[in-house]
């Protein structure tokens, strides 16, 4: 066990966990932040996507010991009132079916638009292909990303 001081959604959170613990489980089990989802545990599905200093990373493969001073943003901290342009676009396009993968999809999309405010269809496909949606809402995700890009 070791003590870690993490900057998550702008606040400092202290946890005492095994250094190998993935950020995913620190969030879910130790900080009771359930928005970041477990899907595969091997960085193949993207359900656990969070931002590390603004970049999309798979939190299931990110040991807490590797975070250091970097700041983590989760779906709970993407916006204060759930009104990030990507979140709004998701509602506008009524993207979700079961909804389980969508926080990961949204975090991936938000990171894309931060680095590339006007992505082409291909940019979106390349960036988002690490996020599986078992319900098959890919078309709406793409439309929502394009809508959000305009705002």
């Amino acid at each position, binding site marked *: 066990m070791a003590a870690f001081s993490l900057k998550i959604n702008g606040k400092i959170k202290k946890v005492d966990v095994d250094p190998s613990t993935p950020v995913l489980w620190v969030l879910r089990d130790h900080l009771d932040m359930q928005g970041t989802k477990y899907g595969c545990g091997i960085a193949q599905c993207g359900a656990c996507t969070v931002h590390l200093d603004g970049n999309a990373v798979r939190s299931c493969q990110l040991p807490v010991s590797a975070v250091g001073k970097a700041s983590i943003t989760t779906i709970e901290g993407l916006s204060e009132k759930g009104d990030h342009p990507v979140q709004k676009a998701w509602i506008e396009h009524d993207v979700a079916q079961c909804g389980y993968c969508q926080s990961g999809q949204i975090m991936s999309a938000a990171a894309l638009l931060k680095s590339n405010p006007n992505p082409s269809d291909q940019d979106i496909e390349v960036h988002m292909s690490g996020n*599986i949606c*078992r319900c098959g809402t890919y*078309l709406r995700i793409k439309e929502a990303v394009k809508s959000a890009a305009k705002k």
Partner: protein
Amino acid sequence: MNNNNKTTLDRRSFLKASLMSGGGMMLTVSWLSSFKSADEAQGLTLPEQGPQLNGYIQIMADNRIKLICPNPEFGQNVMTSLPMILAEELDVEWKNVTVEMGPHDSVKLGPQFTGGSNSVRMYWKPLREAGAAARQMLREAAAQTWNVPVGEVTTKAGTLYHSSGKSAKYGDMASKAATLPVPKDFQLKAPRDFTIVRKPKKNVEGKKIVTGKPLFGLDYRVDGMLIAMIQHPPAFGMKLKSFDAAESLKMPGIKDVFSLKLYEDGFEQGGFDTRTFNELLVVVGNTTWEVMNARKKLVAHWEAAGEVKDTMSGRSGKREVIIPGALESTNTQLEKMQEYAKKPAQQLRKDGDPETAFKNAAQVIERTYNAPFLAHNCMEPMNFFAHVTDEKALLAGPLQAPGWTEPTLVKLLNLPADKIEIQMTRMGGGFGRRAYGHYLSEAALISKKVKAPVKLMYTREDDMTYGIYRPMYTATYRAALDADKNLIAFHVKGGGIPEHAIHANRFPAGAVDNYLAEGWQIASNITIGAFRAPRSNFNAAAEQSFLDEVAEAAGKDPIEFRLALLKRAKENPVGKNNEYDAGRYAGVLELLRDKSGWNKPGNEKYSRGVAAYFCHNSYAAHVVDMVTREGQPYVERVFSAMDCGIVVNPDAATNMVQGAVVDGIGNAFYGALTHKDGVPQQTNFNNYRMIRHNEAPKRIEVYFVENDLDPTGLGEPPFPPVFGAVANALYKNKGRRFYNQPFQPDFEKAI
């Protein structure tokens, strides 16, 4: 899963109103509605006895309308569509409607079964009646208060009006209305007067989803909750022999390691009590990561389970089933299927004299189709929370069929049903998998053993390698053409491990004078379960590919070929018990032909494949437009035509169809769960290929046949014909036919 029950229950409707402590009106609606149980084909069949359905409508004093949603939500958007139906007849403003998921309560809320594309279909009439009856009671209350004839009281969007200028909000009249007798006769709206139904409404949980609220089973937590995982045997046909937990127990955060029997010997299993492994090796600890790590330190010894005798409950009493013990491999399974395909099979339907027709045919076409086991791969792996004490049990998690799980818990926990509370969380996908509640039963027994609240969690690997797959299927089709290229006989012989997929009474049965359907099956220790449109998901693939080939041999356009057969089935049907409506089936094909510009210029760049299918009471047809992209076949565009009667929530319905198309393309191209010596060869998304963003079509245009028929489901019907349309487009793209799913390894071979 076999259930030939097609009973139509007489409708006996009654409603009860009661006052709520908060001053609102609660209308309890219960009925035996005009509910037809699904046919045997649907897999997710309903209990033999007609379920009594109930719903709660609450009209709060502040004019809000609350509906307790009885059916668990797994992405079909039932939490939105069901309240829309209610709000329509109640005549309230949609923005005043709130929805809550109900707990499991078989007395008040009926079977609460999500599956078989039945939610909207089952609740359509009852919810309309509930809304209309409540509206009538509110009008009556206003009439009495204002001392005017009830016929003069009108409603609009949650407000009562009288021509004298009087008006009142529903909330103001709710308490009085609740004291009035429930009307026996009330008028339902004509579909042309709908203002909510047929108008797109956004997912009522949309905001919660995009902000990461804890909606799902895996998100469920209570103080002092422990995490449990099960180490299951590495192969189907194996069981636990012994284990050494010493190293695991030394790991931090670990509370206990033990083995536990799920079902005692002779336990009578219901149809949805399927379980692959009975002896559970369990690790319990404080946190997920600690339990994952401790589980790796387990020293477990496994042995061949041998033949296993299971006791199944059934309509005609209990029966014993022998589960074979062999460690199966995909190649030996295929060989065995080929061998069985040559043997005599069970006759499922026969019309005319197929033997003679085939003998006299000018041309006989025979083709065999194969498809592998498929894993459901719900994004949220199986999990359940349980807190079981000597007195009671609380369970919470993702579950499609709580009504069938509760009796199992009663037996396993030795608690009365009223001491067992089941809460259904939003499901991260279901697809049929969560109709099988073994993981809930496991969680309950683990909680009872460790005397603590426990969340049982399956990792992705646990989930994918556990079983309860879509069966492995094969079917051989034969068609006889006469000298004028007319289809004079049709024969299908289907088999599967451990069950076949044949729907003997579906198209083209009814359209061909001489028809024969047969089926056979091979027992296996690889467990299976309903998978989005059970059986149909293979039938549509095989049959619709075959019809494409027969149409070509007959020199006919594939759509016109089908339409001619459907014309025959409509005007002069062959045989009895044809399940489909030939007119509606033709209707989706005609709509699709028009919308897709079939045979019209402008589509030359595409390899076009068409397919149609009827299942779960709805009709679906697709045109798949394929191109070659970077040397690979790619479905760039799809046109879909559906007939599910009235479309309650059009935009959500479109989403559902689009999702089914993507799911169908993915599974047709990539889906496969194979075995070697009983060991599943796919364990996670690195080796079980799922369709991704870049592989989804750029456009999926969805069209609905417009009619005023009572609505039927959409979760399953659009899925099966996608496979056939993909296969037919691949033929155009590659110049040869594809008979074996998944198609992708096959076309890669050819490059």
